[in-house]
């Protein structure tokens, strides 16, 4: 069925993505990620010496500060901070710099739906810009369900009914070709790092969201890699 979305996109189409890095010169790493009108600016400072009380000193710790566009900091911001912290912890190599703290500060510049995936993508790009060692990249996407029960990708704020924010890993491309795997295991990119849903949905629709999300994430991964690689020859050393 031809679905008319408010801005004329078809159900499987994402809003235009834009990523620019190295915007803040005082920060060790920074990135700005935008999906249509949803824009998030991420700044990374670290690794700094010392961990917070109660954290394991044998591992690096990640601290996330979320600044909303307007209003005071409340429970919603704390929830985003915790989700982001746990997601970023699982992609960073924590044993490389033990007993250090890396701070990721996020500023919401525009919010038009799919805010959490935009923030995760921005913080990942900022971590790469800062040179923090990562196991692999993480790409995030938001899948929504309309009232009629059909699936749309990257919903805007008005379209947000029942949504699933999904984060998948983006494994490094290997130089050595992988041996053929005869087992029926799913490839690495299919594992879910983070999934946060809002609104009730039938179980099958959730699995459809997963399928569509994985397919769309491979496209976002390509975009990510291209934008990271294009900056490499011109990138001046941060130490200077």
């Amino acid at each position: 069925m031809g679905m008319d979305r408010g801005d004329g996109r078809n159900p499987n189409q994402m809003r235009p993505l834009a990523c620019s890095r190295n915007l803040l010169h005082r920060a060790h790493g920074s990135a700005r990620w935008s999906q249509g009108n949803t824009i998030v600016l991420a700044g990374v400072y670290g690794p700094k010496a010392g961990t917070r009380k109660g954290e394991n000193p044998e591992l690096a710790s990640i601290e996330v500060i979320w600044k909303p566009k307007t209003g005071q900091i409340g429970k919603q911001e704390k929830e985003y901070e915790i989700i982001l912290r746990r997601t970023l912890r699982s992609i960073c190599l924590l044993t490389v710099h033990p007993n250090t703290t890396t701070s990721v500060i996020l500023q919401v510049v525009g919010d038009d739906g799919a805010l959490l995936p935009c923030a995760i993508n921005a913080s990942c790009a900022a971590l790469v810009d800062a040179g923090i060692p990562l196991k692999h990249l993480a790409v995030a996407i938001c899948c929504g369900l309309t009232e009629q029960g059909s699936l749309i990708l990257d919903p805007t704020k008005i379209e947000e009914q029942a949504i699933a924010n999904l984060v998948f890993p983006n494994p490094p491309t290997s130089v050595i070709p992988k041996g053929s795997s005869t087992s029926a295991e799913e490839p690495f990119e299919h594992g879910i790092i983070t999934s946060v849903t809002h609104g009730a949905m039938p179980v099958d629709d959730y699995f459809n969201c997963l399928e569509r999300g994985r397919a769309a994430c491979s496209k976002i991964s390509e975009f990510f890699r291209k934008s990271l690689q294009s900056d490499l020859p011109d990138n001046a050393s941060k130490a200077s």
Partner: protein
Amino acid sequence: MAANSSLEIDGDMEVDAFRRLFPLRYYEHYLGQSVRPDARPLAHARETTISLGPVTSVDGSALVKIGETTMLAAIKLEVMTPAADLPDKGCLAVDFYMPPVCTPNVRPGRPAEAAPVISKQLSDVILSSGMINFEELSLISGKAAWMVYLDIYCLNADGSLFDAALLSAVAAFSHLKVPLVSVNDNGRVTTVTGELLESKSELELVNKERRKLSFKSLPFSLTCLLHDKYILADPTAEEEDIMDTLVTVVVDSLGRLVSLYKAGGVVLANTSTVKDCIALAKRRAAELHNILVESISEMEVD
């Protein structure tokens, strides 16, 4: 101490010390046989009890224990003017407290970072599942409606806090009886207590009797811990400390998936793991529904 190349427990070291020093290896001995150290099978949740109405000063309350995790939920209703754009709907405010009594990690100057997160998750789940029909909370359209204050106190934090909190909220709502209200001469709507009712018989009552709310569907949740290939249902605080990948699945009595919450973690969940977690959650939801229905009928007998 003899250096062992295999993973056998050294005879000289006490089991307790081994449990503290190498918790993950201690657990892996048991996980291979699909049990936990206290002989609970991996897919089983801890013993759950619900007690309705422990607090008499509020309109609805419930005390829930899942293993050692204890939650006390209390609901108070207050009359308020509804918002201009939603004149027929009541309102809900959810708050989750972790006082220092529940865990040694919380002190008055060091609030738990989990508390606002669980509080937000609870209000999201209760609103998404459509459990409460807000139109039912309206008294006089545009002028008066009920504001529901749900407060949940954690009295003992031993893992699976969200599960226990949600169950206590659902149980408290099942126990809730909407108080009687009357309109006085100035047009103000006030609540009527028992003594007032006996003295003034000409009070005009807006609702005739203390009614219970009706629910479209009840949400129940199950938290699972993922480690390697194992799925541990309903983890204790000790297990949550050692293994960090938690998945919380909330299903409702209509069979819909209300929420699937997985925030990071070392283990990546693939489709088969997600399917298993959802199946475990559905089984647990049926169990919890039975326990809730039993405690409601027990209370009504009294």
